[in-house]
């Protein structure tokens, strides 16, 4: 056997022996060949270069290195006060990985082991909405980035900051044949460029530092969004000298408030209105933001409609009239939208009929005001910016930064003689709110003893057991739960409700919840995730990360054994086409076999109970699970539920 491959293999083996400290073994020429040599037939006599390399002792070739490029990258990351880094391991960043855990001491950031890049990014997404600061995510060349892309899109749509790094080796002469080529892209960020706010492939250490610090600032500036910086594999792995290298200081911009003249004009309209309405979307980041909105609503006794993408407004406040949206918008003479992404869809509807029909929900004379950073799309390809809606006053400015100024302007514009009318409006809102509350409880009682368990019952049972704790609900699309937590629970703190995935990309729920729960952990809060079954199967590995990193979180399965939204869509098509109405379950349901989610969780070391289909057994199972979570561990209860 004297073919090329065999010869190369033998060389590899012998050099491995040499690396292993066996240099004193019989000095065959091959043993010293630590440098990559071109594969030559074994019979070829060594050339001058080969001979020189082969006669060098191993000591003359660098076998170990001290300070490396990725150590410096860690120095840069550490200036950004990032607590965690979510990551599924990958060879394109093996240098940086090692630097984080050894050189960086695995602290700030601390490594979070994830089982899929979609999980890493969704965790960072949920985390940022509670911690109000970004997590870092480390991604593996084009393969990890492609895994991550849907979760990045969700975060983009949801206006959430994430600082992402990806390994990628640009110098073609330094890539080993095979995998390293397949795991490289000349423009890696192109995969996700349409839905990140900034990206770069730095070509030097200084360049890396400047780009990462800049990217951080861009990411957290409203409208917030993910950013992506490449950590060149070669730069990570090369040794670097010990001397200190500069790192630019992070300077965060003050957020823009709306034009004072425009705010004053908006205030005058609001003050003069008979039936003003506030619609609020991706607005609240802090409790102060919530408090200011309450103060504005109270100053005018104006009802607020929450789009349920953030907490925004306490749900039991009499001016929170979210579930009266249609009626209120129909009567409104002035509508103020705060950080509303879909203004068109707020004042119009497009009915899901064969010929889609536009329905105008507001009076043609209603004046509209938009305040926020959402009305100017950042990129054109993906259409999350929604349909164009002209408004009467379009004020560009961060909602939280601008609202105190709008409140001041309203107070200034408010004549004393309007007070009585405003108080009267408040009484009307109070009465309407009370009526809705009563109807809500009656509606919750329908199907109370049903099996599958009604979602209202599930939420009422849960609420009963968490209401006295410092609780928080995570992730999830409220519509899937028929808004029962928003209707039955009492939400007062900004962190108790953070909205859903943003882009409705299925898979966010479980990992988003784990990231959220991590942000809550240091505050000792009790965190609940009401988790769809189909969605959990996109990223079930998130459960393992919760166990592994001891992240307390109660997962309650809303198990309707289907991709239920899609089931309803297919049913609609079948009904319209009149050739069979009983087959929509094909391709949409998750039965035969039914998945046992408690076994799934238990297989990853999580405490779990269920499946529970008798509503009278639910309370006891939840109690046990809650005790586990209070001890600091995650737990799961599988509940066989009504579809919605």
């Amino acid at each position, binding site marked *: 056997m004297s073919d090329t491959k065999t010869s190369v293999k033998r060389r590899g083996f012998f050099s491995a022996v040499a690396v292993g400290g066996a240099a004193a073994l019989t000095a065959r020429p091959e043993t010293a060949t630590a440098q990559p040599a071109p594969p030559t037939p074994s019979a070829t006599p060594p050339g001058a270069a080969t001979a020189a390399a082969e006669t060098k002792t191993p000591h003359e070739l660098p076998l170990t290195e001290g300070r490396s490029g990725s150590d410096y990258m860690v120095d840069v990351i550490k200036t950004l006060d990032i607590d965690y880094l979510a990551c599924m391991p990958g060879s394109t960043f093996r240098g940086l990985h090692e630097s984080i855990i050894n050189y960086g001491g695995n602290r700030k950031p601390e490594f979070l082991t994830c089982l899929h890049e979609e999980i890493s990014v969704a965790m960072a997404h949920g985390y940022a909405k509670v911690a109000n600061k970004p997590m870092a995510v480390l991604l593996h060349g084009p393969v990890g980035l492609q895994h991550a892309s849907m979760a990045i899109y969700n975060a983009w749509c949801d206006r959430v900051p994430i600082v992402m790094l990806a390994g990628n080796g640009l110098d073609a002469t330094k890539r080993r044949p095979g995998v390293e080529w397949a795991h490289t892209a000349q423009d890696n960020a192109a995969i996700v460029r349409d839905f990140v706010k900034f990206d770069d492939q730095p070509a030097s250490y200084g360049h890396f530092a400047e780009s990462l610090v800049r990217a951080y600032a861009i990411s957290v500036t409203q409208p917030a969004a993910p950013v992506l910086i490449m950590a060149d594999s070669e730069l990570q792995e090369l040794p670097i000298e010990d001397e200190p290298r500069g790192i630019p200081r992070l300077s965060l911009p003050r957020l823009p408030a709306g034009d004072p003249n425009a705010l004053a004009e908006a205030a005058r309209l609001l003050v003069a209105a008979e039936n003003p309405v506030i619609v609020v979307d991706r607005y609240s980041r802090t409790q102060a933001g919530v408090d200011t909105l309450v103060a504005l609503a109270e100053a005018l006794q104006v009802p607020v409609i929450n789009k349920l993408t953030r907490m925004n407004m306490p749900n039991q406040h009499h001016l929170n009239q979210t579930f009266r949206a249609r009626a209120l918008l129909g009567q409104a003479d002035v509508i103020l939208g705060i950080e509303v992404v879909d203004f068109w869809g707020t004042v119009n509807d497009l*009915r*899901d*009929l064969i010929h889609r029909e536009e329905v105008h929900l507001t009076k043609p004379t209603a004046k509209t005001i938009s305040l926020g950073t959402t009305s100017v799309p950042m990129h054109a390809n993906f259409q999350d910016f929604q349909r164009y809606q002209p408004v009467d006053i379009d004020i560009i400015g961060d909602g939280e930064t601008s609202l105190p100024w709008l409140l001041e302007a309203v107070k200034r514009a408010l004549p004393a003689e309007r007070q009585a009318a405003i108080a009267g409006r408040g009484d009307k809102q109070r009465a309407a709110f009370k009526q809705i*509350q009563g109807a809500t*409880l*009656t*509606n*919750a*009682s*329908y*199907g*109370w003893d*049903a099996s*599958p368990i*009604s*979602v*209202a*019952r599930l939420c*009422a*049972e849960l*609420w*009963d057991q968490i209401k006295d704790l410092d609780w928080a609900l995570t992730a999830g699309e409220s*519509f*899937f*739960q*028929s*808004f029962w937590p928003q209707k039955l629970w009492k939400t007062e703190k900004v962190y108790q409700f953070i909205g859903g995935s943003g882009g409705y990309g299925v898979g966010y729920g479980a990992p988003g919840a784990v990231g959220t729960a991590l942000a809550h952990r240091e505050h000792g809060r009790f965190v609940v995730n009401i988790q769809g079954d189909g969605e959990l199967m996109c990223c079930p590995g998130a459960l393992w990360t919760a166990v592994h990193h001891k992240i307390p979180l109660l997962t309650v399965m809303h198990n309707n054994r289907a991709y*239920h939204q899609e*089931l*309803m869509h297919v*049913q*609609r098509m*079948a*009904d*319209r086409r*009149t050739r*069979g*109405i*009983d087959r*929509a379950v094909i391709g949409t349901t998750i039965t035969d076999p039914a998945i046992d989610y408690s076994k799934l969780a238990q297989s990853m070391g999580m405490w779990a109970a269920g499946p529970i289909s008798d509503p009278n057994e639910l309370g006891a199972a939840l109690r046990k699970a809650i005790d586990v979570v209070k001890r600091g561990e995650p737990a799961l209860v599988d509940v066989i539920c*009504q*579809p*919605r």
Partner: protein
Amino acid sequence: MRTLIMCLSVLSIAPAMAQDAARGQHLFMADGCYECHGTVGQGGAAAPKLAPDPLPAEAIAHYIRHPAAVMPPYVETLVGDADVRDIQAYLASLPQPKPLNDIPLLAR
């Protein structure tokens, strides 16, 4: 000929005489009504409540063939009058909810 006429009359009369709630429940599930209205017609974010106290069968039949807003239509050839009567019988067979004061978790 006589047999045929007899069959037809049996078909048209029998369901009117004895609505079959069990068959109605089967249809409510198989035809997908439960997907939006819930398995006991309790309603939710996707569709309003249908039970207890359902509309009369004629009103249900009319509604599902000519929905007023976004409910998908069910044509008569697929959900006939007899089917609707059974669905109505199922909905009518569902119990009233307990009074709120008898449900501690909902009593306020």
